[in-house]
């Protein structure tokens, strides 16, 4: 039997523009891009060049460190551009899509009886492998290891997050099939972590997994928090995690033999005129989703949620792992004595803003940090939004001091950036907690 876990320390940031339950349809985007930068530490080795024709499922590039891991085209079409940045690092591979997607076919028949190695091989060549995230460090999964467990967070608790009961409606059979595959990849359990107050009917058919029930505010939906509560990661252990959307991709792939990365995502935020659900494909150009759908011009478009997502342009591309687009106003304006007399409401956990904290329900948050970077002064603040058995401020300080042993002792193996995003949000000294943690993780990964 799974566990019942109550998350007490955390924070639900209620922002304006949460997605309505409607699913809108827009024209299929003309271009798509797979961005190596979406995957931490990935150095791509190109398999195609500009002008090549590809089918959905054809390999675009592989991981230089492990060439078995393919990144494949989400649609069929022509390679329009390989975008390079500093020192010719590959930033994106753009595809000009065919009007009708043609799929490369994979032989997945009888997958129920295939061995773990055969399943892995199919996941690797189909390009589904990169949807598996490996902890510690939150990196590409290593196909040669067998993780001690696989965790799937069945819900998203982040601000403006998509509701899986809408995005995964109709995917029930694929989800079931996906979990069947996952079960073969680990020697331990596959955990499906659900929220007691949220609709989990899309998982009703899933069998043979450990269902754990969570309750409480964000970050209850973060898989890192869930792992910490259920079966924490110790030194030397490896755990894999997936989003439910990606489990459905895997299921659909093995059921049909085609790589079909169509998904329903949330497009939300105070600057979106029709916040709701939109059907699109991994790597899609978002300009179609945002055309005639923005309330103002000076906005930040985020692939992902406002706490952890990536800033993209209005004609940028949906991140590989992302299941939502958030659009909020930019905060690039001065505010006269704003620290003393705030001129508009802003989300906060500080009781020094009693009205915002206790009375105001939803906020139109912008990207102004509301203060400047300072040394650590205030203490006891991160702990209020950190439900894990980890001392957040001490961990961050050990990273700043580059004290590897202390980082390990304080549990750096158990966290990735998103797990400490709320600490960053509440920080009085405006420390870039996620960036610091990222440096620490990189340092640890190099050393181990």
């Amino acid at each position, binding site marked *: 039997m799974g566990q019942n876990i109550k998350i007490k320390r955390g924070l639900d940031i209620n922002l304006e523009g949460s997605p309505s339950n409607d699913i809108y349809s827009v024209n299929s985007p003309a271009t798509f891009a797979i961005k190596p930068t979406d995957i931490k530490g990935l150095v791509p080795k190109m398999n195609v060049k500009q002008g090549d024709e590809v089918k959905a499922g054809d390999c675009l590039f592989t991981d230089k460190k492990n060439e078995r891991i393919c990144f494949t085209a989400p649609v069929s079409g022509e390679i329009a551009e390989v975008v390079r940045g500093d020192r010719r690092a590959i930033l994106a591979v753009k595809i000009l899509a065919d009007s009708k997607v043609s799929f490369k076919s994979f032989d997945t028949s009888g997958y129920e009886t295939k061995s773990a190695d055969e399943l892995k091989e199919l996941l690797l060549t189909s390009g589904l492998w990169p949807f598996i995230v490996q902890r510690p460090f939150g990196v590409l999964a290593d196909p040669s290891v067998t993780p001690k467990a696989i965790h799937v967070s069945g819900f998203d608790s982040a601000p403006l997050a998509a509701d899986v009961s809408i995005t995964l409606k109709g995917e029930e059979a694929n989800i079931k099939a996906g979990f069947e595959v996952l079960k073969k990849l680990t020697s331990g359990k596959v955990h499906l972590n659900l929220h007691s107050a949220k609709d989990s009917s899309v998982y009703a058919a899933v069998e043979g997994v450990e269902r754990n029930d969570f309750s409480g505010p964000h970050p209850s939906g973060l898989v890192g928090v869930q792992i910490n509560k259920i079966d924490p990661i110790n030194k030397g252990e490896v755990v894999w995690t997936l989003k439910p959307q990606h489990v459905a991709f895997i299921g659909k792939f093995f059921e049909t033999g085609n790589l079909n990365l169509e998904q329903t995502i949330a497009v939300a935020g105070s600057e979106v005129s029709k916040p709701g659900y939109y059907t699109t494909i991994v790597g899609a150009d978002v300009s179609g989703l945002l055309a005639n759908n923005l309330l103002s011009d000076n906005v930040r478009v985020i692939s992902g949620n406002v706490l952890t997502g990536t800033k993209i342009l209005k004609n940028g591309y949906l991140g590989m792992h992302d299941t939502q687009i958030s659009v*909020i106003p930019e905060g690039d304006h001065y505010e006269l004595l704003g620290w003393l007399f705030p001129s508009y409401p802003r989300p906060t956990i*500080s009781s*020094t803003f009693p009205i915002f904290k206790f009375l105001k329900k939803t906020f139109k948050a912008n990207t102004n940090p*509301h203060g400047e970077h300072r040394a650590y*002064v205030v*203490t006891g603040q991160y702990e209020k939004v950190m439900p894990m*058995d980890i001392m957040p401020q001490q961990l961050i300080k050990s990273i700043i001091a580059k004290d590897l042993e202390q980082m390990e002792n*304080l549990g750096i193996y158990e966290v990735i950036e998103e797990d400490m995003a709320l600490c960053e949000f509440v920080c009085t000294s405006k420390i870039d907690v996620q960036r610091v943690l990222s440096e620490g993780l990189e340092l640890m990964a190099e050393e181990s």
Partner: protein
Amino acid sequence: MKFLRDQVDKLKPTFSEGGKLSFLHSTFDALETFLFVPNHTTHSGGHIRDGIDLKRTMFIVVIALLPALMFGMWNLGYQFHRATGMEVSLFENFWYGMLQTLPIIIVSYGVGLGIEMAFAQFKGHPVNEGFLVTGLLIPMVMPADVPLWMVGLATAFAVVIGKEVFGGTGMNLLNPALTARMFLYIGYTPEMSGDKCWVPIADGVATVDGYSGATTLGNVGVASSNGTPWSDSLLSWGTSISDSIMGTIPGSIAETSVIAILLGAVILIVTGVGSWKIMLSTVIGALFMGGILNLAGGNAWYDMPAWYHLVIGGFMFGTVFMTTDPVSAAQTERGKWIYGFFIGLLTVLIRVYNPGYPEGIMMAILLMNVFAPLIDYRVIQSNIKTRLNRVKA
């Protein structure tokens, strides 16, 4: 607002790199960001941030200090006129005290901010808001009769040796305001203790019969050495214990009124800016030690009711405003309980067992400042141990 912003923008190049007054860059920056929250936006990690910042946090502390400061100003006038036998209005008392106090505040802020801004410019970092609080705390814990040059010297010592040598705000080991007071106490003991310094009375001004400027702490100390038994008559000249709670007794400028200080405590606790854990555990520590001494009995100190410790001397002021300095206090949540408890306990111990120095809370806090990292270390080790045990299991 637009007009003001335009003016600032016009001035900005003069103070920026390459400008004529670029050596005042940090100072300009501090004033600009005081006036306007910058137009920066988030660029890494989370895209939205909490509304709170250090300016607001520090400002809340300043507000919390105001009741005690206002009362202290009034009380200074009240004590003077009581000693000299004059009947004056509430406002006259306040005015008298304000004139005594303002120069001290001006010197403290002037010297402290001057040094802070110079360091900021030299080291190329922004001016930190911490001194807004320290600069007010220093005058508040001074005796009213303190010479201004001593205030300046002590402030300079506190900022340079107490803070900047450790790397500036956030890195200091000791509470800067108490460092300033300790510096004066050790360097200029006669001016900082005894009967004369609390209520400034110029030579030749007549006082009423029987007047003594001694504090309760002083009286009880003397009584204990002489073997005089405890009684309420040892409270400072002509006052009762309710006067101690009210604050109409001689003492450092703003430390006397328990009620005004508790008002500040309410502000700090309700806004979450000050740690209630530390305040509560300090009180518990003092009552615990005082209770044990009550049971033992023996001399005036032993027999004084334990709760009197909370309302005489600087105990309340120290507990509410000094122990809760987040930088020099224990930083772990469990550590805060231990830290506070020992401050309370040590305060009483020092008061009772140190005949030379009647006020214990200053020493107790500074001592526990030094031990705070050790307390945190133990707390962190226990977290580490839990993690290691998990592997073994």
